[in-house]
């Protein structure tokens, strides 16, 4: 036995020194002698995970795990064997935990770290990794113990106190957090060195936050005041943070005079933060007093002459009937136009929410237009008017004005960009993209207009043009075009627009296929249309669209993964508040509006494929028309496919998404979307899925895909509420559109004839539920 242990130690050392090949030979030797040696199986799994020259790593962008699936399954089997022979062996459990951490399976890693630690409590290092896994999984209850145990093992570092304190914080146990903070403060009181300056500063303000969270407001205030007047070297340096917290506390304590003084200090530090102005009104108790607010802002605008906010804010609360509104607006606009600010319209766009103010704005700007002599300023005024008419949906007038401004100054990029935007609003997408490209040609180094052009091309479904333009700014080392690079740099907007465009093209091709199919039955003269090419298009566009949607979620998975190192690193750096912010951000990650949009699109697409399953399967079946195609057809098809590969290839493992189609559409294996649904519906109760139109639509489609028609009715009710709420808002317009779509589809289900009695009774229930809505 002793010899085996020696050999194993040797193998372990070789593994740690990355001599994988040698280590593997040693392991095989051990297993030959002693086939029950559980540690060796676990170590073998770990080695093979890193070292598998026969099957090279996957190189696809945005992959969290690059190990090929066949290797993973070998490794998993080895771990299973290891567990079988040594279920409570600390070393093999530790190795298994390391393996699972590598493949980002934190549940299993936690499981094995726990086994490893409970069988060998002297190895404290395990606790650190275990804590990271627990934090990643948000299992905060167990986190306190592991953090605390590790602190007791390693009490010499402030980081360990901080991490324990945060563990209490995450469990909302602020009292214990403060206790830990006090402990370490007492210990290090006289031993701080220069390197601790920032860490100490952050810890001090973190403690203020703890008092605040405990609702001990008087104590918070005293504490902050002491920090603010401190002359010591080791004090809190985030004055803005302290003052903001002080203001909040003072407002709760209703000490308005002090609050007002505090917010003025903050304004002095940063007069560009609009929230400070609102806070100032609140502390002065003049939120509803127009004349007082005017006086205050008037003074502030003299105090901060270069700042726009105090000049602009009166326009938001002055009544349109008020003569002051008119004069104020006139002065405000004149000043901006004179200075040649191109974005005047964006400054005052929020005023358009009040429909009474709109004609006043128009009149004033028109009066400027009549007397302006300087051609450049006149250009900007006409540009403004164009925005105005675009905003109130009078697109012809908007075009008229933008053409006038282009006539005066044809060399300004902004004018063409806005013209393209009006055309887009008129739904002239191709023309819009051409104009946007004209704008781009005026300044080839402007990446903003380059990106806009790409977006407009994608909206017009001119994918190749879009990719050509986008590739001007990407690194095109591995591929001729830049799509892969845009995935590597996690360019979400591009992939989003791209997948939407692919979805439209897919639906268009499927339509085309249906038409050809119907003609085919009527007569046999189908020579003009290359049906196999259309089939290819249906397949490729669908495959790529699916793949792109999943790519975006993959990027989000990376964002989520990125936090892992910080469960350890943040405490070493002492950035506690940033750590808490990060946790918060990660918790809400899958509730970002973009996720909602993609979720809705992806689920709609999949549910569309399910509803049109018969037609789609026919389109995906290449054997149907293979004999019919001519030589030319075949040539065209190959040429088209090669071109698609040049432009669209991102993943080497599945270049055109065919595997994805096989899985999701042909074999109906929906585990991928079930996983997504789980991520979006976080079940820890900390954050709730937002009830925006897109999330509701995604949920509806997900239920629809799974045949949960009764559950889907809940989404219909929610979307109906939104569509009724505010008829003018953009969201309610989308809601109304989605509502009609949903109703149409659910009715289609009710009206379809089924033989199955179960489905028939389901139809009845859904019908009843629908009537109650």
């Amino acid at each position, binding site marked *: 036995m002793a010899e085996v242990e020696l050999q194993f130690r040797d193998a372990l050392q070789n593994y740690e020194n990355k001599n994988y090949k040698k280590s593997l030979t040693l392991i095989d030797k051990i297993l030959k002698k002693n086939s029950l040696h559980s540690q060796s199986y676990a170590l073998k799994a770990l080695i093979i995970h890193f070292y598998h020259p026969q099957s090279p790593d996957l190189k696809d962008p945005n992959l969290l795990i690059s190990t090929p699936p066949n290797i993973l399954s070998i490794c998993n089997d080895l771990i299973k064997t290891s567990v079988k022979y040594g279920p409570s062996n600390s070393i093999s459990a530790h190795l298994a935990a390391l393996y699972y951490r590598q493949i980002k399976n934190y549940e299993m890693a936690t499981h094995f770290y726990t086994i490893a630690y409970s069988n060998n409590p002297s190895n404290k290092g395990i606790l650190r990794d275990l804590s990271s896994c627990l934090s990643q999984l948000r299992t905060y209850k167990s986190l306190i113990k592991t953090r605390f145990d590790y602190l007791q093992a390693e009490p010499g570092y402030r980081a360990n106190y901080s991490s324990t304190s945060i563990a209490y914080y995450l469990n909302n146990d602020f009292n214990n957090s403060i206790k830990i903070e006090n402990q370490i403060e007492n210990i290090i009181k006289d031993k701080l060195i220069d390197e601790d300056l920032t860490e100490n500063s952050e810890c001090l303000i973190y403690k203020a936050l703890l008092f605040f969270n405990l609702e001990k407001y008087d104590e918070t205030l005293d504490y902050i005041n002491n920090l603010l007047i401190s002359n010591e070297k080791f004090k809190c340096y985030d004055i803005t943070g302290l003052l903001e917290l002080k203001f909040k506390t003072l407002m709760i304590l209703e000490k308005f005079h002090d609050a007002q003084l505090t917010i003025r200090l903050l304004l002095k530090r940063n007069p560009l933060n609009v929230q400070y102005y609102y806070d100032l009104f609140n502390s002065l108790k003049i939120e509803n007093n127009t004349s007082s607010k005017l006086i205050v802002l008037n003074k502030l605008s003299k105090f901060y002459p270069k700042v726009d906010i105090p000049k602009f804010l009166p326009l938001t609360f002055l009544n349109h009937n008020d003569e002051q509104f008119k004069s104020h607006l006139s002065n405000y606009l004149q000043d901006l136009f004179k200075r*040649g600010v191109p974005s005047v319209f964006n400054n005052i766009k929020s005023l358009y929410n009040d429909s009474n103010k709109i004609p006043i704005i128009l009149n004033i700007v028109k009066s400027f237009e009549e007397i302006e*002599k*300087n*051609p*450049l300023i*006149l250009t900007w005024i006409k540009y403004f008017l164009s925005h105005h008419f675009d905003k109130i949906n009078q697109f012809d007038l908007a075009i008229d004005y933008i053409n006038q401004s282009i006539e*005066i*100054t*044809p*060399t*300004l990029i902004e004018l063409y960009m806005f013209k393209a935007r009006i055309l887009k609003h008129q739904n002239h997408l191709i023309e819009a993209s051409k104009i946007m490209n004209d704008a781009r*040609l*005026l*300044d*080839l*180094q402007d990446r903003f207009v380059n990106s806009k052009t790409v977006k407009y091309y994608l909206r017009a479904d001119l994918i190749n043009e879009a990719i050509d333009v986008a590739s001007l700014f990407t690194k095109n080392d591995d591929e001729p075009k830049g799509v892969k690079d845009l995935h590597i740099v996690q360019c979400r907007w591009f992939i989003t627009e791209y997948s939407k465009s692919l979805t439209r093209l897919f639906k268009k091709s499927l339509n085309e296929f249906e038409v050809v199919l119907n003609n085919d039955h009527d007569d046999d003269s189908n020579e003009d249309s290359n049906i196999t090419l259309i089939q290819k298009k249906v397949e490729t566009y669908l495959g790529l669209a699916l793949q792109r949607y999943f790519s975006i979620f993959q990027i989000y998975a990376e964002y989520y993964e990125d936090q892992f190192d910080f469960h350890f690193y943040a405490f070493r750096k002492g950035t506690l508040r940033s750590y808490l912010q990060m946790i918060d951000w990660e918790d809400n990650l899958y509730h970002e509006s973009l996720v909602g949009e993609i979720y809705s699109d992806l689920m709609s697409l999949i549910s569309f494929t399910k509803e049109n399953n018969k037609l789609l399967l026919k389109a995906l079946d290449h054997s149907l028309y293979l004999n019919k195609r001519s030589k030319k057809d075949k040539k065209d098809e190959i040429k088209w496919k090669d071109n698609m590969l040049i432009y669209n290839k991102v993943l080497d493992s599945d270049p055109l998404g065919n595997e994805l189609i096989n899985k999701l559409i042909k074999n109906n294996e929906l585990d991928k979307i079930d996983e997504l649904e789980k991520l979006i519906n976080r079940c820890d109760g900390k954050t709730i899925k937002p009830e925006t139109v897109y999330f509701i639509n995604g949920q509806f489609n997900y239920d629809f895909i799974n045949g949960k028609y009764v559950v889907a009715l809940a989404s219909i009710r929610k979307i109906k509420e939104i569509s009724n709420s505010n008829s003018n808002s953009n969201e309610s317009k989308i809601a109304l559109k989605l509502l009609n779509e949903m109703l149409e589809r659910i009715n289609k289900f009710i009206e379809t004839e089924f033989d199955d009695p179960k489905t028939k009774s389901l139809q009845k229930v859904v019908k009843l539920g629908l009537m109650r809505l």
Partner: protein
Amino acid sequence: MSTVPITLDSLTVNNLGVFNKITSPTEYPSSYLDKCRESGELCQYAYFSEVPVGVIVLDTIINKTPIALEISLIKVLKSYKLEFNVEKKLIQYALDLAPKRHLSSCIVQINSKDTQLINIFREMGFADDDIKKDIYCNVSSKGEDTILMTKSLT
């Protein structure tokens, strides 16, 4: 109004698209634009507070040795013409450049109907010069109705 600063700058690969917008409706082929860009200081855009509104293209006239600097193209957007001294700034640029290149005179051929521009050239010291037409033998005549104006810089 004349206080608006006019600045000049060379063409770059990225802003060649502006050229034809200024000279519109005349369109120049991209080979011509590339040549202009490569000529460096011989071709300049004029900026009206950072917006390009004018362009000048210069050529060296060679008769065995270089003898004159020709303003082969000068164009300012309609709305920015005359009032803002863009033309003067461009012409002055040519006049300043010629001595640096050891050229003793500056010449220009203008459409005889463009009296406004002719007046500006006169203001800047150019004079009608029918006699010298032969001297600049490789000045490709820009049509019947052009006149030649010159300014000696010695």
